């Protein structure tokens, strides 16, 4: 059995400042097997694998291959040890061709296109991919780029492949193709690690599952000997009996009407395609979909941050009048008296000013207020104190840079501020990503509280369990289109899962 071990990690610890990302982790990766590295967002999966790939170096602990200690100081060292990692954000040079990217960094490679092409072709044939070596990366689709990444790793003879959430951006067909490839590679004797938090994929592809939780190693189990429920228990620490309180708000009324919303990005790719729905005051409307299905664009186009190509977005006032929001800037929207709050996915890059304290961040909503050129610091300061108290934000002071707060506290500052603006519509994107259970519940409660105040809450989430227990209705996006809107109280996970991958969902699935 021992000779079967490709890599062994022992007692690995990695800190970023005060945050312990990995806490004394042991992990064994075996040849000819697919290992799923499972854990919630922020559980330290990527960090751990980055240490194998030479991106980070462990603060403590040691890595072994064949019983010998390994030092992986750089990605180069990693390649020399036969370790190749496909990062979530592809490491490709945009202006290079596929072939140029593939040979990047190789030592003894002659830059001879013919040899490279034939070698690439050989790899492609072996595992059944298709790529055009002379195509520039900036002309490629996401899955083509991923293919280049995989070929790149195989080209340098990697025996240990690490894939960081490879399916997040893929269509179901593409995912299935990828899995076929992975199985072929396993048959070839390669050791494969997939970082993921999707249980269905874990069950479908892996031989073993290693689970991390909050930077700690929980354990490894054989896939055939476990169940999704058991894995979830390991991931979150207890069985998911979320028991989110879901009261019903009686007098729901239409608050936001979106019709035929279509958005196109800089490169001409359609991100949203004729999205139509109505969000009601007094409900939580969940938005589900695999990553990159247009969630970001949906929220940003409603708030005036993303250009709208076609369609209408109407805000319904308390008096029942409709106000068209298309073409307005966020500032104009705010000035017309449309109370809209938005908790974006990228908290520090979009929702907050990392270098400022809580007070400075409270000002982000109110800095324009008041006459004259000077800032009003007093009321933001009071608000900051209020949020600090009420949401139990852990920070030394209201002027302590929020960048240096922990993820949960950052989110509390952001949500606290947005709720304080007394919105009519509250939009949140992945508000509990990376947060611990307690903070997550605190956020759920806040959202429900808003709902019960008659606010229309739009909740973009990734965890279907949460969506099903928290929301009143769920809108499912698939490739920029509305796949369907279901009642969260009656819908099932499977149903939504189908809709996420196939427009039309159940009906389409029934046909199959």
């Amino acid at each position, binding site marked *: 059995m021992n000779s079967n071990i490709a890599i062994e990690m022992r007692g690995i610890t990695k800190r970023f400042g005060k945050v312990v990302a990995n806490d004394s982790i042991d992990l064994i990766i075996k040849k000819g097997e697919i290992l799923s590295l499972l854990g919630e967002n922020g559980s330290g999966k990527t960090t751990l694998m980055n240490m194998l790939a030479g991106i980070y170096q462990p603060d403590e602990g040691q890595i072994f291959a064949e019983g010998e200690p390994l*030092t992986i100081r750089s990605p180069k060292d990693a390649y020399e040890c036969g370790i190749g990692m496909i990062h979530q954000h592809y490491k490709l040079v945009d202006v290079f061709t596929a072939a140029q990217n593939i040979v990047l960094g190789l030592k003894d490679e002659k830059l001879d296109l013919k040899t490279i092409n034939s070698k690439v072709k050989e790899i492609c044939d072996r595992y059944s991919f298709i790529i055009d070596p002379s195509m520039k990366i900036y002309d490629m689709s996401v899955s083509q780029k991923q293919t280049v990444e995989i070929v790149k790793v195989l080209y340098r003879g990697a025996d240990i492949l690490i894939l960081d959430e490879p399916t997040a951006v893929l269509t179901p067909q593409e995912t299935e193709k990828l899995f076929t490839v992975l199985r072929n590679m396993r048959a070839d004797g390669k050791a494969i690690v997939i970082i993921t938090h999707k249980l269905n994929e874990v069950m479908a592809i892996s031989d073993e599952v290693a689970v991390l939780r909050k930077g700690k190693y929980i354990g490894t189990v054989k896939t055939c000997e476990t169940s999704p429920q058991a894995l979830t228990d390991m991931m979150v620490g207890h069985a998911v009996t979320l028991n989110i309180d879901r009261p019903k708000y009686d007098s729901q009324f239409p608050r936001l009407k979106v019709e035929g919303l279509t958005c196109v990005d800089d490169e001409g790719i359609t991100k949203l395609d004729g999205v139509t729905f109505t969000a009601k005051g007094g409900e939580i409307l969940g938005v589900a979909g695999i990553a990159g299905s247009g969630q970001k664009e949906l929220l940003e186009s409603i708030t005036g941050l993303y250009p709208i190509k076609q369609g209408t977005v109407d805000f319904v006032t308390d008096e029942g009048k409709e106000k068209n929001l298309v073409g307005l800037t*966020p500032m104009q929207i705010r000035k017309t008296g449309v109370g809209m709050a938005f908790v974006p996915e990228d908290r520090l890059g979009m929702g*907050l000013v990392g270098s400022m304290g809580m007070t400075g961040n409270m000002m982000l*909503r109110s800095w*324009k207020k008041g006459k004259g050129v000077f800032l009003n610091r007093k009321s933001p300061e009071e608000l900051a104190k209020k949020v600090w108290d009420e949401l139990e934000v852990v920070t030394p002071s209201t002027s302590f840079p929020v960048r240096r707060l922990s993820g949960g506290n950052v989110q509390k500052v952001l949500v606290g501020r947005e709720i304080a603006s007394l919105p009519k519509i509250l939009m949140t994107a992945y508000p509990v990503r990376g947060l611990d259970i307690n903070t997550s519940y605190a956020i759920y409660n806040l959202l429900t509280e808003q709902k019960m105040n008659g606010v229309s809450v739009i909740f973009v989430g990734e965890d279907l369990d949460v969506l099903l227990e928290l929301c009143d209705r769920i809108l499912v996006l698939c490739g920029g289109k509305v796949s369907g809107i279901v009642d969260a109280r009656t819908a099932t996970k499977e149903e939504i899962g189908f809709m996420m991958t196939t427009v039309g969902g159940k009906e389409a699935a029934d046909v199959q």
Partner: protein
Amino acid sequence: MSSETVNIPFVRLAKRESMDPRKVWAIRIGSIVIAILLGMLPMFITGNNPFKAYQIIISGALGKPIYIKQTIKIAIPLLGCALAIAPCFKMRFWNIGAEGQITAGAIAASYFALNWYDKVPSFVLLAIMFIAATIAGGIWGLIPAFFKAKWNTNETLFTLMMNYIIIGIVSWLQGGPWEGRKGSQIIPMFNDSARLPVVFGIHCGWIIVLVLVILMHIYMNYTKHGYEIAVIGDSENTARYAGMNVGRIMMRTMFLSGGICGIIGFIVVTGANHTLYNGVANGVGFTSITVAWLSQLNAFAMILISIMLAILTKGSNTLQTKLKVPASISDIVIGILLFCMLSCEFFINYKLIFRPRKTEIKEASV
């Protein structure tokens, strides 16, 4: 476990979260001390006593009231221009076109000085020149900002090019429309009514820049504009999210920055040179960038650093006459000083983690 630590690299880097402010200042002052020691090298190589050389520099810069005045005269545009650059850099807009914006302001001021000196009273003339210079400098700063806002044109390279365009225009004015004695390539000296009044022996530009220091401090820290600039500097996305019109704020800030540079151009032509020529900015636009950066964009720290550079510049001039050392030694010493001060920030922002000695694991930081 001891065998396992063998392969840990000897030293590696990590970002530092925070540092005791006292330690920060100690490092910065230490770097200046090191720079002064390194600055002795060229003097040593040329066979001079470095201590004597520094004594001459200090006495040449501060040894007589008139020398102090001259030193302050050198510091005025450096300080003023650093103030102008601060908001741009805070916004992460790399304006290295201060040189050109100074020149643009100087041209506008000179136009009125040359043509209106006998038409309006002195203080009105100066006020007109001041405003004209502000607008001209502002427009010269606005142009690259416009293209940055509209098409994301690289502002570093754009502002750099703008310097040489406007300097070329002055050369043309000097030999063309504004030339004094034909063929002389010299624009006539300004009339007395177009000169800044003198206060305590120095043209009153020093009062203007000191007022600017306070205004800029207030602007950056207590106004809505200052807040917008800080947010954009942190993240443009956040600024958009908060409803800020990033392009407009960029243009506005560059107009302001260019405008202040224009004021410095006004001060330089009316206070120091009393005429316009193509070297009117004299590298101030570049040096002041380092002043602004090394001051961490703190308006008050800029006073200190600009005076320090002015002392070196003025003092080195004396060095040339006294020790027969070329005056360009000032550039060398200033260069060394800048290098050291730039380097020291590394030790403030990063920590070096050395390989633990034995099995014990500890962090050594510098």
